[in-house]
């Protein structure tokens, strides 16, 4: 049996890092890497762990979350750390130092807005601060952070394709959910400036669809009806769940410092997407839709904050050219096949083998 790697099974190895306590930074051995993943229970974290479990270049994976992943773990250690607790950074730093972590993947973000705004702020903004503190303390070699293209915000002045250099205007929308993500991104940008030795990769995924992922977009498009704003029909883009995980695996495998938009090929108008999915559009004038949405959100009837209507009104489409050029990330699903795969209408484009355990 090739797995787990021979070096892992002996208890001698556990003592080994203790000798290295004086060395601040773990020596980087490309064949024996230790990866820590926060948000291991989330889709992105869990899928990434599944891939790293199969990859012999990775010696150990540290899964950090409040819930243990449900699939069997072989070379993955689970550590229960609540990022909202005030001492989370010290806990993380202690674990990571002990295990000699060289790469940290920060995926502990919410994938859909919540009414528990205070808790969400603690998790996303303060949690990111804890992770960055711990990463700075351990001097990790690489940090990969998950973000979303909604941080650009749906703004009337957006060009058709938002590049990575575009200012993050998501916080102008007064949506707590987007604001927390923008705050997290700004902290990461500051971290990048202060810790020049660390390779910092930010992956901004577009709305992710697929047969197994569950997030705001899949819930929105699973309903039989969808609201539309009368007269507005912006272009939208998606990324397939497998492609998104591919991008994370690429960023963990190789070193690509910088921010990257992880988006699928092609755009479609919102109305066409609804027609392809067979949804019944619910047209509403925008001046009525905003207060109505506000009321439904305030009474907790509906799960999308009123500011999300901006995304049904203005453009928020990101340009994936940089990821294609620098990372060599080529999405295997375009927007049409992504939608078809989401609906279960066609077989996946490529044989997917990396997800299984």
């Amino acid at each position, binding site marked *: 049996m090739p797995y787990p790697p021979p070096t892992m099974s002996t208890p001698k190895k556990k003592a080994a890092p203790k000798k290295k306590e004086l060395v601040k930074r773990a020596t980087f051995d490309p064949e024996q890497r230790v990866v820590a993943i926060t948000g291991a229970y989330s889709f992105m974290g869990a899928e990434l762990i599944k891939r790293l479990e199969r990859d012999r270049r990775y010696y150990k994976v540290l899964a950090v979350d409040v819930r243990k992943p449900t699939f069997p773990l072989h070379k993955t250690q689970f550590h229960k750390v609540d990022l909202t607790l005030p001492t989370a950074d010290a806990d993380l730093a202690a674990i990571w130092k002990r295990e000699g972590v060289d790469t940290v993947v920060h995926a502990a973000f919410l994938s859909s807005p919540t009414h528990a705004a205070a808790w969400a702020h603690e998790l996303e903004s303060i949690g990111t601060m804890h992770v960055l503190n711990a990463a700075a303390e351990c001097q990790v070699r690489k940090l990969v952070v998950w973000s979303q293209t909604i941080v650009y915000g749906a703004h009337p002045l957006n060009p*058709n394709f938002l590049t990575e250099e575009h200012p993050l205007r998501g916080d102008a929308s007064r949506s707590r959910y987007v604001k927390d993500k923008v705050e997290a991104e700004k902290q990461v940008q500051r971290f990048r400036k202060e810790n020049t030795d660390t390779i910092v990769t930010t992956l901004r995924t577009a709305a992710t669809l697929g047969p197994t992922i569950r997030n705001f977009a899949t819930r929105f498009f699973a309903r039989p009806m969808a609201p539309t704003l*009368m*007269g*507005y029909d912006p*272009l939208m883009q998606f990324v397939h769940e497998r492609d998104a995980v591919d991008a994370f695996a690429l960023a963990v495998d190789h070193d690509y410092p910088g921010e990257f938009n992880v988006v699928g090929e092609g755009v*479609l108008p919102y109305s*066409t997407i609804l027609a*392809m999915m*067979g949804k019944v559009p619910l047209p509403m004038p925008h001046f009525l839709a905003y207060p109505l949405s506000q009321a439904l959100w305030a009474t907790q009837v509906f799960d999308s904050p009123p500011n999300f209507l901006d995304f049904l009104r203005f453009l928020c489409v990101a340009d994936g050219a940089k990821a294609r050029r620098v990372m060599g990330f080529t999405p295997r699903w375009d927007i049409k096949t992504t939608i078809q795969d989401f609906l279960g209408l066609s077989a996946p484009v490529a044989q997917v083998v990396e997800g299984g355990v």
Partner: protein
Amino acid sequence: MAGKQILGDDPFGTGDAPAPAAKKKKEKKIESETAAENAAESASAAASEVAHEAAPEADEDRDALDSDGENGTYAPAAAQPPSEYGPSIDQPPVAKHSGLVDEIKHLEHSVRERILPARSGEHGGERQRLPLEFLWKRWRELAMRDRSDVVDEFGRDPNVAARVEPLLDFLYRQYFRVSTRGLGHIPDDGRGLIVANHSGTLPYDGAMIMYGIRHEHSAHREVRPLVEDFVFHFPYLGTLMNRIGGVRAAPENAERLLNQDQLVAVFPEGIKGIGKLFRERYQLQRFGRGGFIKLALKCDAPIIPTAVVGAEEIHPMLSKITWLARSVGIPYLPVTPTFPLLGPIGLLPLPTKWFIAFGEPLYYNAEYGPEGANDRILVNKLAEQVRNKIQSMIDSLLKERRSILFG
């Protein structure tokens, strides 16, 4: 018995028939119930027999059987009044089922027969297996019938564009009778920046330039007009402009298009051009901040100065109301001889005769290089040059023109 009459005479309960029938039913409740128990078995057996016989047979046979069954059961039953002491002997055996439950059972059976005609048939079999999937598929086909599932990256939908084409054709050939000159100045391939004067309250001029080059130019090139924010974010209008090829006027979008070697049409007068009063017609407004010059210098694109004559008279705007318009979010409300006097009809454009002249391309990049885009004073000077060039083209066209409506 009474139930049969309800369904037989007036299946949806719209007439007077049910009332006496219901009364009778109350009176004969016990009899009908006992009778129903006896009759139910025979009736359902007969119905199922009919069904089983029908199923394997061919279509025309089944049709014939269906109609037979209907005549046999319902028509005579409706004609005959219910007897007081149970079913009469004269009644045909098929109509023996009595009571509402039986009636509904029979009806259900015949309806099922009609909806799901044969289990062996191709379509019937599919429909029986996936009734909702089938409906869902049909609904999606219906929703997608006049749109394309592939749009270009700026949102031009070929199917929607094809549907608007006849309207543009009518406007171009019959309504405005556009005549073009200087089409040879537009390159057959490679990038180009068409710079034109803007007017007309609604952006007809962009559509006419687009249509003219697509149909009259030797290479049938596509032009992507840049649409200013006010129009682009106007409900319905902006969406339509986007589907037929319009692009939001942003420097990033224009650069991307030019780097793809496309033709881009810009109207540097912008919103000031659209909102020109009638007395200001054919007097070019300030050319923005010279963004189009920067584009041309950066992307090495030739500028093709273009004059549109005729468009500035389609909506002779006498004045504009701004205070009212601001409150609903538009820059101004036009006042023309017909609008708002005649309501929406007043928004019909005047059928003027149009001339579109394309001038010689200006290659500023060869002269000043891409770094010239950072020289503000140079950019403004070049913008003014282009403006004067277009103004003189307009003036010479106006001199030739004798009539607004007939050219």
